[in-house]
């Protein structure tokens, strides 16, 4: 049963199993284990990024396609929900319409880009996605009447999902709409993740790996490589869009900086690589660690800086305002120490 749920792709390392379980439990019980606005925010973000990163890994790790447009798909989903909520008014119907429309739009756009450019070299696809993504970003900023431009959109979601909706107390924690919202995000993400896990372990997933390894031979044994690549791109885009919709539902705000920026694209890349490319579990670890670092590095540094007060230079470097410096160092070190990602490291037992 469990094997079927995991599609036969077991963690294959005790430490990894333990880590995954810890993450699962922590996320599942986050509202009760870590009460507080900040921690719930972090937990939801982890859930969403796990799915986003996993969907990117389907493309990058499994199919060997480098795309810089993943945030664009993410954004499509987010703007889908935002626009439908703005125009249809607050309601569940708006959320559903927005999500479905966003996912469809993402898949169609991916189809077009893919058919257009996946026949040629990898770098061509990478550059085209970069071009399309920046064109979309420009468009969003230009169509400010519709999209709110640089400023983004604020909108309302069903009351049941906001803190105003109170349900009483459980284990000493006030359960409100926000908690419900969290569980919506968590549940959807869990399902999406398991779905992705199944896809990569299906016959289709194996073909993707073959294509990654040697597309020339894959074609020669009868796989129509372009179709597979395009399908993978569409799937990955649709899942990213759904992740975007969840993000929009959670945040109740979308803007270019939160969904479309190149910075997020780099974050996704880093999460994939830290976690380990070509394994879905890598996405879980990568996203969790990175989001935690992003959220708590600064506070941590504040503490460290206090603690080292009096020493020369060190408190300056540990100044919370220099957290980006350490994030950069983290980028470098993680690639250094986890060349095959954390999962690769754990699996090889070293």
């Amino acid at each position, binding site marked *: 049963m469990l094997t079927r749920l995991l599609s036969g792709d077991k963690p294959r390392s005790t430490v990894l199993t333990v880590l995954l379980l810890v993450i699962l439990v922590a996320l599942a019980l986050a509202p009760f284990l870590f009460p507080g606005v900040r921690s719930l925010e972090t937990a939801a973000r982890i859930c969403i990024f796990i799915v986003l990163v996993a969907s990117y890994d389907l493309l990058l790790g499994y199919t060997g396609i480098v795309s810089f447009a993943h945030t664009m798909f993410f954004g499509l989903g987010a703007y889908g929900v935002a626009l439908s909520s703005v125009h249809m008014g607050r309601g569940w119907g708006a959320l559903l319409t927005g999500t479905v429309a966003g996912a469809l739009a993402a898949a169609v756009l991916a189809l077009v880009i893919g058919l257009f450019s996946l026949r040629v070299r990898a770098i061509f696809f990478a550059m085209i996605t*970069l071009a399309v993504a920046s064109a979309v970003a420009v468009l969003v900023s230009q169509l400010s009447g519709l999209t709110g431009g640089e400023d983004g959109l604020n909108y309302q979601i069903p009351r049941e999902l906001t803190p105003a909706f109170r349900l009483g107390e459980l284990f000493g924690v006030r359960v409100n709409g926000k908690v419900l919202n969290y569980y919506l995000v968590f549940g959807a993400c869990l399902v999406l993740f398991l779905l992705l896990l199944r896809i990569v372990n299906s016959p289709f997933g194996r073909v993707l790996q073959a294509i990654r390894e040697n597309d020339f031979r894959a074609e020669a044994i009868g796989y129509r490589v372009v179709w597979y690549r395009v399908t993978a791109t569409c799937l990955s885009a649709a899942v990213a869009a759904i992740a975007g919709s969840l993000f929009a539902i959670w945040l109740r705000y979308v803007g270019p900086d939160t969904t479309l920026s190149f910075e997020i694209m780099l974050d996704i*890349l*880093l999460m994939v690589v830290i976690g380990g490319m070509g394994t879905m579990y890598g996405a879980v670890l990568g996203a969790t660690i990175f989001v935690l670092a992003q959220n708590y590095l600064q506070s941590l540094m504040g503490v460290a800086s206090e603690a080292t007060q009096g020493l020369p230079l060190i408190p300056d470097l540990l100044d919370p305002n220099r957290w*980006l410096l350490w994030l950069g160092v*983290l*980028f*470098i070190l993680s690639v*250094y120490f986890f*060349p095959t990602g954390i999962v690769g490291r754990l699996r090889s037992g070293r």
Partner: protein
Amino acid sequence: MSAAPDHKPTFADLSLSDRIGKAAPYLLIPVLVVLGFLAIGSTSSWLTLTVSGLAMGMMIFIMASGLTLVFGLMDIINFGHGAFISVGAFVGITVLIWLGGWTGAPSLVLNVAAVLLAVVAAMCVTGALGWGFERVIVRPVYGAHLKQILVTVGGLIVIEQLIHVVWGPEEIFLNRPETLKGAITFAGAAIERYRLLAVAVGLVLFIAMRLVLRRTRIGLIVRAGVQNGEMVEALGYRLRLVFIGVFIAGSALAGLGGVMWGLYQEVITAGMGEEMMILVFIVVIIGGLGSVEGAFIGALLVGLLQNYIAFLEPKLALISNIGLMTAVLMWRPQGMMPVVKAK
């Protein structure tokens, strides 16, 4: 030893289109200039736009030249290049501010000498930085593009932050040396003096790079080394040294680009290089990886097209570069005159 039996494959004549194909990229620039003239109509505007577009192209080329070596030839996606541009600008501008006496004097000789000193200082610092960068950051990830993107972005962030630590978070505004200010006007067209300097520097650099890459084996060693480093070593070359050398050269050129760009912008920020990275990548890619000529033509095309389009239809200026890239890649997926095949 016996001679092998004769073997004479059949050769037919090359078709005309094959022959034109080789020269086509060179023709693009005159074609574009003529099209620009037809579309713009006013001679003085056209002249202003063309000269300043070419000069802008030269500045872009100066910044891209280092990347042609590092990304085009060595196949390293180095986002740190952006940080080197910034560092180059900061070092160069600092030197220029020290030499306030020279830059403030209305003497071309003193002004250019000050700029030269600034350039030398910037290139030394960025070259040294490049050396450290290669040793610490890039070396473990040769051949792995994604990891290169990540570590070098890490490096980029770190260097930018260090710029903040050293020079403070404020942007630095400056004034150009006296004789490089203002414009020369003739035939109703105004051409900034500084752009003329940029044209000179760009041309010298272009010729120098072509000579070095044509006359020495370095280009060959690097290209071969990227494909099969083991074999290059088995032929007796110390590939590591060559790679480090080329990387340092690329970084130093980024420093040069930084000084030139900083002087053009007259305001420098830690993020200024990063902002140019996409454009610079586009130039190298449409030029064709590893090709100095390609990057040169690509940069000029970008410069000209940007100006023409911004004049004719400002709305489209936003996507002129991206449109150019897409068009070139549809025409030649490997870029205009690739030396190295893209993967």
